[in-house]
């Protein structure tokens, strides 16, 4: 610190010696006092510090000189300060040291690196270079006095200041007042009274004065006029005045003008002032009179209407626009825009002669319109009314009772009811219709029942025969109708028509039947045969065989379900073998001849294909069984001791042997055999692979006899990854892990590992020794010591009691 002061002192001294005239007065020293901490730099010491720095850095002398120059400026303006006085001496010392080198370049270097301050001139130069205005030098000294010599500042008297202000305000106010008064002074107030109002004398005076003025004015005007006349302007002036007078007009001039209001808007008794409507300057249309108030009113009304927002378009509005002559006004499209497009067309009326307007014509038009409207027929019909349930009295009059006309009722024609009784006398039966009993058979000829029976009786029999077959009855009916000549029946012409075809059919059938029967009759007309037959029939009737024979004989077609079935069956080779056809056979024996003769007779007659040709099944069967039946029943039993053959025969006969080949009723194969009689189902899988065929052994296989007592000892061992055999539990665990695809968790595996390790350790452990191998160690020790024993004490030196210490 002291050194710094010294430095400063030197610089000051140097500064004063090499004082430049430029008064770079700075207040640096006192200011620098503020920076007490930077003492080494403060006190003009910004520069001094810089210099010291310079010295320490040992820069070029020029710079130091430059700084010195600046310092000199700084110091030159220094006032009497303690430091400054102390400093110069120090600085002087320093300066003297480095004087020469620096002084040369004192003032020249200003803009170099560490220049701390510039003089005003330099600053101005710099500012000029930068484009700034030069420094203002006047306000340099703000402080009037220095610290050492303080100059008393002017006392600021607030009171005085305030008073001055007030005075100024007052003066300004007074001035304004004065001006106002001057302005207002000219206007007469109510309070003021003209003297001439009350006092007549004054009034007279005033009037006289006014008169005088008038006269004066007139004179002046005259003078002016004369002057104008002289100049020739008077005529023009007169014309102007004259025109104004002419513009005054009367009521007749109003004729023909249009008033742009509805005539209804003018009420009687009220006066409405009409003015000319504004029109453009260049428009040459005629004038229109309007009243402004009315115009406004109309406009207001229109606006109200618009604001009401009535619907623009009423599609079903009908009665709105009835115009003159009750005609529909042609409704134009988008009529709401007409005003906008074409312009307003306000109501207007013309003034008639004398400027009057009656509105009479309009009223007349209205009346006409009303009249026409009344006449008009409306197209709307009367609305629907509820119909009354009862007739009104008026309608009752028109309601008359009508007489009933007697109608002829047509009698119904009774239908013909045909009854069986009617038909009885009608029958001219030449057909057999004896359907008496089933036993006797249908369609059985009535002829021979008994000898007693005579044809006559038969015919008689016919009459009381009540039941007829339906068919014949119908036939009879129809035929009788026809034969009678068709008793006209109203309801049965259709029946006749339908049955005509049937009738013909029936006729044909009857003819055939009759022929047959006649022939049959003729056959049997031979007495002898006849008798025989009757006898036979008498005999055989109780047996009930007639059914089968009669139809065969007579040739009537009889269908029997069983017979048909048997026919279709075909040959039955075993027919009668069982021995249940004996009776038939017996009968056949007797009757065969007759049959043959009958058949021969029938054939001799030459009947062809009338009946079914008798199948000589019976003959065949009988021929077959003849020998068999005769031997088995009637022959004696063969003697057993005759020989084996006899014995066998006997057995066979007795039915002891089972060697007889049973013949099974064979159905005759139909004509068409199966298309593929020989077929086999091929198994193609077996053919293909040759390897399988190679491996298969088609030879004889047999069990090993020496291995009969062999029972396999099945032992399934499961092994884990290390090769250990697994217990069943572990094996199952392994299987389930494999199955489920996931093993045990962390804990489980750890446990398992631990267990395995323990097991391994257990295995490794010697059974005879402790885990630490104590015995082996002991043995080794013994070997080493060559003693059979081991001393177990600590040091092993001695085991005396002496060695026991505390």
């Amino acid at each position, binding site marked *: 610190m002291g050194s710094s002061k010294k430095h400063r002192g030197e610089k000051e001294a140097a500064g004063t010696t090499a004082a430049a005239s430029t008064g770079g007065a*700075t*207040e*640096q020293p006192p*200011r620098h006092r*503020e*920076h007490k901490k930077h003492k080494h*730099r403060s006190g003009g010491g*910004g520069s001094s*510090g*810089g210099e010291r*720095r310079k010295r320490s850095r040992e820069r070029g002398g020029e710079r130091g000189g430059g700084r010195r120059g600046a310092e000199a400026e*700084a110091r030159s303006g220094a006032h009497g300060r303690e430091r400054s006085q102390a400093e110069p001496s120090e600085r002087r010392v320093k300066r003297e040291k480095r004087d020469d080198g620096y002084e040369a370049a004192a003032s020249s270097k*200003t*803009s*170099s*690196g*560490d*220049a*701390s*301050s*510039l003089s*005003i001139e330099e*600053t101005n130069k*710099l*500012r000029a*270079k*930068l484009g*700034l*205005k030069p*420094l*203002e*030098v*006047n*306000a*340099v000294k*703000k402080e009037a006095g220095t610290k050492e010599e303080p100059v008393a500042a002017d006392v600021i008297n607030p009171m005085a200041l305030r008073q001055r202000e007030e005075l100024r305000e007052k003066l300004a106010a007074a001035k304004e007042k004065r001006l106002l008064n001057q302005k207002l002074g000219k206007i007469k107030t109510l309070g003021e009274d003209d003297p001439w109002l009350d006092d007549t004398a004054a009034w007279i005076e005033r009037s006289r004065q006014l008169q005088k003025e008038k006269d004066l004015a007139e004179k002046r005007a005259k003078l002016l006029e004369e002057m104008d006349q002289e100049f020739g302007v008077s005529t023009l002036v007169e014309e102007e005045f004259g025109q104004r007078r002419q513009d005054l007009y009367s009521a007749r001039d109003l004729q023909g003008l249009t008033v742009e209001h509805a005539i209804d808007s003018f009420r009687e008794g009220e006066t409405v002032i009409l003015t000319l409507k504004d029109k453009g300057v260049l428009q040459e249309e005629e004038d229109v009179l309007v009243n402004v108030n009315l115009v406004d009113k109309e406009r207001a009304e229109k606006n109200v209407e618009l604001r009401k927002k009535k619907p623009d378009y009423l599609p079903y509005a009908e009665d709105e626009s009835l115009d003159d002559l009750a005609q529909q006004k042609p409704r134009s499209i988008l009529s709401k825009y007409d005003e906008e497009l074409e312009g307003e067309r306000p109501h207007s009326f013309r003034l008639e002669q004398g400027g009057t307007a009656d509105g009479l014509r309009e009223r007349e038009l209205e009346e006409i319109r009303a009249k026409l409207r009344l006449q008009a027929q409306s197209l709307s019909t009367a609305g629907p009314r509820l119909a009354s349930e009862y007739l009104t009295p008026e309608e009752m009059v028109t309601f008359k009772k009508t007489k009933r006309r007697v109608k002829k009722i047509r009698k119904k024609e009774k239908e013909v009811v045909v009854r069986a009784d009617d038909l009885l006398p009608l029958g001219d039966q030449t057909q057999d219709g004896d359907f008496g009993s089933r036993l006797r058979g249908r369609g059985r000829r009535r002829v021979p029942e008994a000898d007693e029976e005579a044809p006559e009786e038969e015919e008689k029999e016919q009459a009381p025969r009540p039941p007829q077959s339906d068919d014949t009855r119908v036939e009879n009916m129809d035929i009788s109708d026809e034969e009678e000549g068709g008793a006209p029946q109203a309801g049965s012409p259709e029946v006749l028509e339908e049955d005509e075809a049937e009738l013909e059919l029936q006729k044909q059938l009857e003819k055939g039947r009759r022929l047959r029967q006649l022939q049959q009759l003729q056959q049997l007309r031979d007495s002898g045969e006849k008798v025989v037959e009757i006898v036979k029939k008498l005999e055989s009737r109780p047996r009930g065989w007639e059914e089968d024979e009669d139809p065969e004989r007579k040739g009537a077609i009889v269908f029997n379900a069983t017979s048909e079935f048997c026919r279709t069956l075909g040959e039955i080779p075993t027919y009668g073998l069982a021995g249940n056809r004996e009776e038939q056979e017996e009968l056949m024996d007797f009757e065969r001849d007759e049959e043959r003769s009958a058949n021969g007779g029938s054939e001799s007659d030459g009947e062809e294909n009338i009946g079914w040709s008798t199948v000589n099944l019976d003959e065949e069967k009988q021929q077959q069984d003849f020998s068999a039946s005769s031997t088995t029943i009637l022959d004696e039993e063969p003697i057993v001791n005759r020989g084996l053959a006899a014995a066998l025969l006997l057995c066979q006969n007795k039915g002891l042997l089972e060697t007889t080949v049973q013949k099974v009723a064979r159905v005759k194969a139909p004509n068409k055999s199966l298309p593929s009689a020989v077929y086999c189902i091929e198994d193609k899988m077996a053919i293909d692979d040759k390897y399988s065929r190679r491996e298969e052994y088609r030879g004889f296989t047999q069990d090993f006899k020496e291995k009969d007592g062999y029972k396999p000892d099945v032992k399934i061992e499961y092994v884990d990854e290390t090769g250990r055999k697994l217990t069943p539990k572990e094996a199952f665990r392994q299987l389930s892990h494999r199955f489920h695809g996931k093993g045990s968790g962390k804990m489980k595996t750890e446990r398992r590992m631990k267990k395995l390790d323990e097991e391994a350790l257990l295995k490794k452990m010697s059974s005879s020794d402790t885990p630490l191998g104590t015995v082996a160690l002991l043995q080794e020790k013994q070997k080493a010591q060559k003693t059979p024993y081991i001393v177990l004490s600590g040091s092993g030196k001695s085991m005396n009691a002496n060695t026991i210490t505390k």
Partner: protein
Amino acid sequence: MIEVVCNDHLGKKVHIKCNTDDTIGDLKKLIAAQTGTLWNKIILKKWYTIFKDHVSLGDYEIHDGMNLELYYQ
């Protein structure tokens, strides 16, 4: 005309003579002329108050002899 001291506390300390109605930008230019840096690299501060270029010294109430802190950006 006032004289302002600009100190960067690193060895550069300059006294600048300027007018009260000069802007900070002008002052920076003057500083730059004396210190040898670029004027737009200079930041003048007073504690945390950064002096803006377009404001005049008078508006900032920078009086004669005031110290300004010189920083660089």
